[in-house]
């Protein structure tokens, strides 16, 4: 089969289901349910730290997960601290946070803040365990944290109920090493599907309380919060695309054995 035909098949398998909705039913897995339950049982006013540990390349996969989790947080009246430990996550985190906060009419400084980016993530993670204001003296727009009402009550991880790492690499493992092991914080992870399998040992050990794996994780979370979004829409496309790849593999093997 010519390569060009394979490319056309893949393009169609992604594009057509995005236009024509199939609506395949999606089941919620226990890993996603655990993240939902953890956030759902937090008291109103609890602080959730959301770290945007990803680059722009994985935006279509990580943004639906971030949106779903933030919508749940704001609907529960939780306070959200956003930050980025990879430079490209900074602008994305700022926009995603503002977008969801506006949806729920949350106020900057009172209900949520965005701290921006700090280089050297190990030092930043460890430093926040001692004093967040020392690592981030100012927020992303340059306002001293002491002037933000929400941050007056937040000194370090002691005042944070849950950490959520939205990641496309192995940053959640560093969160386990530094925030979970050293400061005994609870960590939920929203990671790209390709990385998700790496984190199962940490789920099993309880070092991660739950995991959203890629677009499927986002779709499952959207079901739980009853807010359909890009996750659910993308799952039809992903289903058809996976099916096409499986059929290509089978066709390739049939050809191989026939030639043999």
């Amino acid at each position: 089969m010519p390569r060009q035909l394979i490319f056309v098949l893949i393009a169609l398998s992604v594009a057509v289901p995005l236009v024509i909705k199939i609506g395949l039913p999606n089941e919620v897995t226990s890993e996603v349910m655990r993240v939902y339950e953890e956030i759902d049982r937090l008291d109103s006013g609890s602080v959730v730290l959301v770290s945007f540990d990803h680059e722009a390349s994985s935006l279509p996969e990580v943004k639906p997960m971030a949106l779903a989790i933030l919508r749940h947080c704001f609907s529960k009246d939780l306070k959200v601290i956003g930050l980025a430990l990879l430079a490209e996550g900074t602008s994305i985190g700022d926009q995603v946070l503002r977008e969801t906060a506006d949806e729920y009419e949350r106020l900057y400084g009172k209900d949520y803040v965005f701290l921006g980016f700090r280089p050297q993530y190990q030092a930043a993670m460890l430093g926040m365990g001692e004093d967040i204001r020392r690592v981030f003296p100012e927020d992303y727009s340059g306002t001293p944290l002491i002037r933000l009402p929400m941050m007056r009550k937040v000194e370090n991880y002691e005042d944070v109920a849950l950490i959520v790492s939205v990641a496309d690499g192995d940053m959640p493992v560093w969160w386990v090493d530094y925030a979970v092991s050293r400061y005994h914080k609870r960590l939920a992870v929203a990671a790209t599907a390709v990385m998700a399998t790496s984190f199962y040992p940490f789920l099993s050990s309880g070092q991660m309380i739950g995991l959203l794996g890629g677009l499927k994780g986002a779709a499952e979370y959207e079901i739980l919060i009853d807010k359909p979004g890009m996750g659910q829409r993308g799952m039809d496309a992903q289903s058809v695309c996976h099916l096409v790849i499986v059929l290509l593999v089978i066709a390739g093997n049939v050809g191989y054995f026939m030639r043999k």
Partner: protein
Amino acid sequence: MSKKHEMARRIPIIVCFVFGLFMLVQFFVPHRLSGAAYETVLDWMQIVFVFTLLVGAISYAKLNVKKVSRTESGWGYNAIGLVGLAVMVILGLWKGTGEETPFLWMFNNVQAPMQSTMFALLAFFVASAAYRGFRARSWEAGLLLVVAIVVMLGRVPLGSFISHWIPDAANWILRTPSMAAKRGIYIGIGLGTISTSLRIILGIERTYLGGK
């Protein structure tokens, strides 16, 4: 070896030993002074890292300027890279990086779509490579192929649409054999990290200084 070169090798080893030992010991010392010194070290780590970013940017610029000035093969791409770097730095310094700035516009409308496009191209190459290379040439390769198909179908709604056995099997693969293998790898990485760290702190491992 001259005295100057000898010192240039010894100083990093001494710095590494002192700070490595300090970070190890302070973990077990809950005293206020230890905590204060620890926070200062963390501040310094970030400061040093910022300089490494600067070194990276300068090195990138130098390498690309060299290729453009010599009009080496593909120099046009290097020129575009340099222009991109310069434009983003200028826009960032000019109006900042916040809401409704030209920097953010460029990030949202040029950089993010380009990077997402590059990432999305993987789907085409993965499909093509899977068709050409994924063959059941041995029973191990056949097993890998079956597992891959089960996980691929089990991780999308189509799997449960066909049969609930597919997502159940996919989840079992991820939560049992795959996790066991990952756990083994992580334990190996952990032990390797400890031994390498000790070798660096004690000055046995010196390759990070350059040379042999």
